[in-house]
């Protein structure tokens, strides 16, 4: 009798395998999209890294999706061609769609839905992945965030997509733009794609997507976007500015650091000493300078006396001392004004410094 029970239990254990006609192939390793962020009425490509599943490389795989709607309803055992993924490489497949068209839904309806829920399967439904959600990054907060630039992700990587959002309403002169272009480079312009307004194909390549109401978006994968990338290139940053029409207006310089790049510490500017009299030397010190900053240019005004000069230095430190002692010997002043600029013309400090009266 005991043996008999064992047999029944064993049979029951086997039962689910016979009952389900499908083979569970596992969970997708990674799913991402390009563009990184997109509106529901924008064309997007979803990428599925299925290296963690038992799907074979290059196998025909179909998208079985039922939320926000079920375009291939009723065809589980014979998926339609429109639901077929395209094989990329390394057990990664892609699927390109415009959500509003594919699901026959408005952007608002999709936004109100439960999201994108699917399985990946073979044509006849004998193999299927686990139930999977394709994440959607909602970037609508950007429209009211009062930020000129926002990127997804916040750090850039050479081989991964990035979406850079631009709110032109916050930059003077962009209001009547017919197009906005991306003038950019990697590693402080070492490898660049300039906005060459006289070359039609470059005009097209650098053109931002108009999202309406003065909002624009640039989508790119650096390794594919930039020409002539040297072998072994390590990306440290993406520098850029947005250009209106044929250079009618530009934004200030922007920078997005690379994901695996540790940015240098913030610059530290200081005067030395903290208190001084007109009979002393004034030290001007700036540490942790940005690449390309190697000079401080000073204009010190004390009453009718103006002292100008410059100090050179390195990224780690630019330091110099101004002789107040000699020029202010016979000048009666209680404060001086210091204007310090760097070699790029940027104002580093513009301040009054009170002078102590020596006993």
């Amino acid at each position, binding site marked *: 009798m005991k043996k008999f029970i064992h047999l029944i239990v064993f049979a029951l254990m086997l039962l689910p395998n016979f009952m389900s006609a499908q083979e569970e192939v596992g969970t997708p390793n990674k799913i991402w999209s390009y563009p990184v962020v997109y509106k529901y009425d924008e064309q997007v490509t979803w990428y599925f890294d299925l290296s963690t599943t038992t799907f074979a490389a290059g196998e025909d795989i179909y998208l079985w999706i039922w939320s926000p709607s079920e375009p291939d309803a009723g065809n589980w055992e014979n998926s339609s061609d429109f639901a077929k993924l395209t094989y990329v490489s390394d057990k990664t497949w892609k699927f390109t769609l415009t959500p509003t068209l594919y699901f026959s839904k408005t952007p608002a309806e999709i936004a109100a839905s439960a999201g994108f829920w699917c399985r990946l399967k073979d044509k006849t439904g004998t193999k299927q992945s686990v139930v999977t959600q394709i994440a959607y990054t909602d970037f609508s907060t950007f429209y009211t965030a009062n930020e000129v630039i926002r990127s997804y992700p916040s750090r850039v990587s050479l081989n991964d997509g990035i979406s850079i959002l631009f709110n032109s309403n916050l930059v003077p002169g962009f209001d009547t733009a017919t197009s906005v272009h991306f003038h950019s480079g990697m590693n402080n312009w070492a490898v660049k794609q300039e906005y060459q307004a006289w070359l039609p194909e470059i005009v097209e390549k650098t053109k931002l997507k108009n999202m309406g109401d003065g909002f624009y978006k640039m989508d790119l994968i650096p390794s594919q976007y930039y020409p002539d990338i040297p072998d072994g290139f390590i990306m440290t940053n993406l520098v850029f500015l947005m250009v209106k029409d044929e250079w009618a207006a530009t934004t200030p310089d922007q920078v997005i650091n690379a994901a695996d790049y540790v940015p240098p510490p913030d610059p530290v500017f200081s005067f030395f000493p*903290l208190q001084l009299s007109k*009979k*002393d030397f004034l*030290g001007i010190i700036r540490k942790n300078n940005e690449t390309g900053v190697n000079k401080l240019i000073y204009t010190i005004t004390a009453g009718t006396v103006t002292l100008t000069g410059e100090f050179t230095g390195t990224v780690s430190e630019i330091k110099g001392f101004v002789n107040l002692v000699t020029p202010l010997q016979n000048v009666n002043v209680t404060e001086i004004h210091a204007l310090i600029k760097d070699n790029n013309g940027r104002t580093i400090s513009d301040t009054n410094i009170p002078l102590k009266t020596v006993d």
Partner: protein
Amino acid sequence: MKRKIICLMAVIGMLAIGCNDVDDGNHVDPITIYEKIGGEWNLMNLKMVDEVAKANAIEPNEENLSGLFNYENFKIKLNVDANHQPTTYEVLGNVPPLFALNGYWQLSSAFAQPNAQAVRILLYSDAQKTQQTDELRLTSVPGTKREMEIQLVRTSGGTPFITYIFKLGQN
């Protein structure tokens, strides 16, 4: 018995030293600081100390100015007469006048202070030494090594905010 021996030893001891004629040598005047610091001194190092930063443990609180504003050529001549009395002084090397570049000088004391307070070098614009221009602190007096240190302390309302430290040497 024991007391007698002690008394005896004391008497012998007194006999031994009692008639000693102590040799005090010939009389000489004690050596004054004027003798030690008179002459020409070269700058070895000039440091500017931010006393406010130092008091608040803020970095940096000192900077080296030795190579700036001609200080590599800085010399100070502290002239004394034949009797080692201070007369005039002069700063050479075309440096900025952190203190008056020439005039008359004297020390606040010709000898080191028992309370270890630095002797002051008082600078005057007139030979009568009535018009004081500046005051330096002699913080290290030369010994066998011909080196000394003087400090110029900037104070406002009695509170120091900058100290210039001059390390000087003689060839």
